[in-house]
């Protein structure tokens, strides 16, 4: 197998959770995939788009398109939310722009989320990872509903030796980007509900494909003094210690 992907690591992983990025590279390498990292990448623009600042978001989208359109291969994004932004959000941003719309469409076609790439493109579910204990999988909203990725992460987790994985309800953790700040009281209530559901599963680790939700959930768990930690799917598959960092 000779596959090469362009890793769009996302600004959150780059700046806050580099360990997740390392785990992504490790898993991909083990799966026989060559990873390249275009150095000029920054942020996909989703936080601005999400907040209603479309002009700002368009500028970041144009930058991202320019960074990736010169190089061939799948653009791999280890985040459901950012992948949904590139796949759908960009098309919405450039819907009336005859020049940028085709360029956005071309990028959207090449873009795959991490678990989607492993399972759908490479037909891999067994990564040879093991974990002894209980995991809870959080289906993040943009991954599940934005990209329609439902079974892929579960297939990968089911193949993790020794792990008992339960699935949390497909209910938002209350993050929602700036919502968590702007409507922090509501967000905190939603988070509390999510943490309750996590505690019911008695899992030690919450697994998801979006570090944004996980940062929100683990931030809440830590604030409460809980011992439960979060991990990106790649960290489990790479056999890393639990905890986002």
């Amino acid at each position, binding site marked *: 197998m000779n596959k090469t992907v362009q890793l769009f690591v996302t600004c959150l992983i780059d700046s806050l959770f580099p360990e997740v990025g390392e785990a992504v590279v490790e898993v991909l390498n083990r799966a026989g995939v060559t990873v390249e990292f275009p150095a000029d990448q920054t*942020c996909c623009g989703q936080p601005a788009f999400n907040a209603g600042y479309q002009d700002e978001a368009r500028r970041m989208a144009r930058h991202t398109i320019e960074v990736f359109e010169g190089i061939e291969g799948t653009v791999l994004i280890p985040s459901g939310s950012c992948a949904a932004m590139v796949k759908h959000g960009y098309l919405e941003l450039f819907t009336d722009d005859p020049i940028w719309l085709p360029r956005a469409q071309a990028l959207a076609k090449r873009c795959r989320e991490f678990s989607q790439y492993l399972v759908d493109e490479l037909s*891999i579910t067994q990564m040879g990872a093991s974990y002894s204990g209980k995991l809870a999988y959080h289906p993040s909203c943009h991954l599940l509903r934005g990209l329609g990725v439902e079974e892929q992460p579960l297939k990968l987790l089911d193949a993790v030796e020794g792990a008992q994985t339960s699935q949390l309800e497909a209910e938002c953790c*209350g993050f929602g980007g700036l*919502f968590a*700040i702007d409507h922090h009281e509501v967000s*905190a209530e*939603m988070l509390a509900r999510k943490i309750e559901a996590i505690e019911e599963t008695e899992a030690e680790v919450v697994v998801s494909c979006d570090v944004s939700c996980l940062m929100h959930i683990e*931030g809440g768990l830590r604030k409460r003094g809980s011992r439960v930690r979060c991990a990106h799917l790649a960290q489990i598959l790479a056999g890393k210690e639990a905890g986002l960092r």
Partner: protein
Amino acid sequence: MKASKEFHRRARQAIADPHLQAALDRNATRRRSARITALASLPDPEAARRRAAAIRQHTIENLPRYLGEFAAKVEANGINVHHAANAREAVAITLELARQQGAQLIAKSKSMVTEEIGLNAALEAAGMRVVETDLGEYIVQLRGEHPTHIITPAVHLRREEVAQTFHEQLDVPYSTDVGTMTQTARSKLREVFLSAPIGISGVNFGVVESGTLCLVTNEGNGRLVTTLPQTHIAIMGVERLLPTLEDLALMLQLLPRSATGQQLTSYIKLINAPRQESDPDGPRQRHLILVDNGRLAMAQSPLAEALRCIRCGACLNACPVYQEVGGRTYGSAYQGPIGALVSPGLYGSQAYGHLSKASTLCGACTDACPVEIDFPKLLLRARGDYIREVRQPPHFTQGLKAYSWLMNSPARYRWGQRLAALAGGLLPRKNGWLRWLPPPLNSWTHSRHFPAFAKRPFRQRWGEGIAVTPAQQIQTQAPAAPQAEPQAAPLEKKGPVEQFSQALCELGGEVVLCSQDELATKVIQRLEQLEARQLLTWVAQSPLLQTVNARLREDGYKLLTPELDWESEERQPQIDALAEAHVGLTGAGAAIAESGTLVLPAGSGRSQLASLLPPIHLAILSTKDIYLTLEAWLREAGNHTLDESATVDLISGPSRTADIEMTLTVGVHGPGDVIVFCVED
């Protein structure tokens, strides 16, 4: 910004109210699972949603044309059509109609558009008494509040609060028994129904090809309001159109399932015309007020897709934000995700744009929506309008601009990463997580820690080389062989009679199977059990009913065949007499097997009141008149029946409500018992 602050204030109040929280949780849990179960009973729910979305989208895209055709057809059917460009005009038209009738009392059934245009307040200001007759609306009106949910107006109230309100306002003993409270409302509102000269209702769907107004209700108040008064005024938003009756059949599959998890609601009323010369009851005058109030403009806007909405409320039930803050917080007649689109769409960003921000864009609403409105996409468009049109808090805009400036240059971005890592070093932290952030970011750290920026970001580690542990075994799955279609278990093939019987029994109705010869005896046996000597009945047209009526007369039963005349002085005593009958006996034009539904077309000798006023409804149905589905009936007989009859009532089981603490109660305004004598040919 003021409106946004108000939202925050009310949200905090809602969160701090444990009773409200319990009510909202109950609503979410029950309605979500009921919807899922009900939808699963359709052969292909996803295909149904796709078709419904396409029909509604097509209608909205051609709204002016369909609206013109619809208005012409309705007018041709003998209903007076009025066009209201805005709320003020809609109110003025209604007031003028009420004045013409010299009406002091108006009975009203639940309607979102009348909430939107503030109709009640305007009518009351003009000295009229307006009574809401849907149980939930009635409760809310007695308390001087507004509905907090599209489908369940009083969802925010506990039974104790309702009991207290009834005790204080209606002068009845304090009782928290839901059945008792429902009966109180029944008897208090019965007086209103029987004396109000005007009934006002909303409209769920307007069918363009036939000019039909369709009302979807459960309690029976909608039927009373559109049957008893001499004048019926229907008020509808101009977007609630469907091109054909076939489209209506599809929407009727989706609306009740999405709203309350019912296959069909207890009552669906199809109104085509005012009372005909030969009809024994029904309003002589019907008016339709078509309210634009921003809809035609919205149909041309980027939010047009939200006009697909059929007001089922499923998005409210699915929404985790609504579940926390409740309906009152939205400060609009339309709450929840759909409210966050329709409110700014109709009234502009200045007043309601902030609602678009009260969402995490999780998309649970879109999953639940029967017409597949892409809520996240539209909420983002509404946010865009809001940011452009309404001044935002400076720190918000400055922050976003600074972040955008950093991200548009790889060099600045790298520089920003370093600076943030350094700044993070100055803040209180624990194991790499910051415990406090300066304002305005401290609203994050109220309830969460925040990860410190990495000292060595990923890009730096990449540059330095990432070590990869050698591969262990990796199994590439062979592409799965196409699985054979799972063989559906051979369905027990049930005949239409059995299906009808089972469906009606599940709704709490009853079916008595009998031969023609046994029929009269069976009916009399039942009447003896019920100890009923007075009946409202149809003037017999079918031989079946003729035989039964003749036997009843022979046996000394008192048969009343209602013939209401508003002009006559006899009306009041006549109504009083009708109100005494304990049982209504009718025929049935047809029945629908899958939903246990009776089809009762109005017409000469066929009183609508017989199936509506008495607490018990007996119906005589010939098995040859049973259709398998609503669609089949509409296709094969619908057009013809609607041409012949001013109205058609579809009745599925007893009158019901779950407006108080979601406790199901039967027999609110319509009959609590429905017994069908199914006669084999």
